[in-house]
């Protein structure tokens, strides 16, 4: 066989791989859309479930997911960024840094259900926070911490050393250089990761199953110690514990569609921010 034929086979294989990846995504989105779009309405989004979850909407779950994600990110982002700054700029021994990075990467690879059990053992039982918004948010925060650390570290290390040198040469101290040059320059990267993490956190089910989520709650959460409904858990509950599959199925798909749209829009916001900040910094 001559080289042209080999090349054609190779390139077709590449095409096939691309079509597969994109195809699955499209298939996935359209099927959820087709199954879920029917129940979508203003009322579906802004009212609570009724009649044993066979009617009504998802408002409490949406609000619950909002608070869970927001609180989780509010905890994990500052800690994660500070940790990354320390690792990048202050940790003296490179051995210590690599050990810590191995720990962080290990944490990042832990299955989310383990975080759920961990959260139940630590926050719910040991610290006595019970199954509550705060327990769930803290569990999600622990889950997202390694992602924030890794992404922030990445962003910090992509800042050109030239900037730091320029800053020192102008008389800035290390602290000033970090606060005024390093972090602002890394900010687009850090911000992108923060937003992506929010999306990830919003979609997690396992970590909140034993720590925060409740199957049904007539009221919106009023305090940190309330149990909350959450979108991913709502879907899980409808599909596993529902007794009226015919009515609850479409509601589950509708919820899934909303969750999908939520996560997609969070991702696209992060893309837009990254694009804008990059454009602003071009040579």
């Amino acid at each position, binding site marked *: 066989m001559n080289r042209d034929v080999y090349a054609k086979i190779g390139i077709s294989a590449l095409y096939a791989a691309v079509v597969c990846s994109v195809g699955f995504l499209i298939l996935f989105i359209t099927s959820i859309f087709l199954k879920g779009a029917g129940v979508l309405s203003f009322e579906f989004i802004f009212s609570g479930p009724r009649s044993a979850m066979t009617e009504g909407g998802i408002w409490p779950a949406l609000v619950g997911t909002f608070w869970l994600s927001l609180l989780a990110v509010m905890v994990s982002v500052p800690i994660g960024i500070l940790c990354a700054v320390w690792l990048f700029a202050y940790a003296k021994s490179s051995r210590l840094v690599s050990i810590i990075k191995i720990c962080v990467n290990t944490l990042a690879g832990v299955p989310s259900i383990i975080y759920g059990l961990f959260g139940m053992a630590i926050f719910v039982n040991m610290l006595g926070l019970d199954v509550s918004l705060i327990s769930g948010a803290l569990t999600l925060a622990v889950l997202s911490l390694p992602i924030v650390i890794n992404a922030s570290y990445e962003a910090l290390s992509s800042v050109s050393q030239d*900037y730091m040198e320029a800053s020192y040469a102008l008389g800035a101290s290390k602290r000033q250089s970090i606060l005024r040059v390093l972090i*602002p320059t890394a900010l687009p990267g850090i911000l992108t990761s923060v937003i992506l993490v929010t999306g990830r956190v919003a979609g997690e089910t396992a970590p909140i199953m034993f720590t925060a989520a409740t199957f049904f709650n007539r009221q919106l959460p009023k305090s940190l110690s309330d149990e909350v409904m959450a979108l991913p858990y709502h879907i899980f509950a409808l599909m596993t514990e529902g007794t009226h599959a015919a009515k609850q199925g479409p509601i589950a798909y509708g919820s899934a569609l909303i969750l999908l749209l939520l996560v997609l829009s969070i991702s696209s916001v992060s893309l837009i921010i990254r694009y804008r900040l990059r454009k602003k910094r071009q040579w």
Partner: protein
Amino acid sequence: MVKIKTSSLNLHFGKNHVLKDINLEIEEKKVTAIIGPSGCGKSTLLRTFNRMNDFKDDLKISGSIMVGDQDIYLDKPDLSRLRAKVGMVFQKPNPFPKSIYRNVSFGLDIQGRYSRSQIQGIVEESLKAAWLWDEVKDRLHSPAMALSGGQQQRLCIARALANSPEVLLLDEPTSALDPQSTARIEELCLALKDQVSILIVTHNIAQAGRISDYTAFMYLGELVEFGKTAQIFTVPKDKRTEAYLTGVFG
């Protein structure tokens, strides 16, 4: 007047003996060029004057370096003040990804002892002194990264000038620039020597000849020859200087 004086300056990075017994006197408000082949230690020498070598862990230094009447290693000066007093411009233009204005005000902002209007005035003066004012006065708050390479390098000079330095260290400031921008920076150096003492490291022998009053030739960590540029370029005393200037090696 001597501005910088080194006596038996020796510098090691670990086992590597980078600067060997350097004795040098830099005249105030003159342009002094440091030339020599790659790896001869000229950039390292320049970076000892504002202690930018301090970041390397295995640095060992002996001898003395006086800037004005201060030994900048033994007297343990405040590094922020030293680096404001001895400004530096790098090979690759490296403005911060901030606005033009913020780049120039950076050194003043971090000192925290200037009022807004003072800073405004100094920014304008510095940009004028670096011949950039007319080109940027209408867009002071647009990103510095949008400037051309030559403008960026002049911005870096303006940024250093804002600290009202006594010495300006230029580390191959034109090697990343086109000939026109290079010429402009060279003229600027000549104009600035009324205010500051300028040390310029350059690979470009002709450039040293054009703008410097004094030239130091370094080879393998040694200061081979130092004197008036006119003398070094016409009657070098050392064979190695002559060979380097005539392009026998480079």
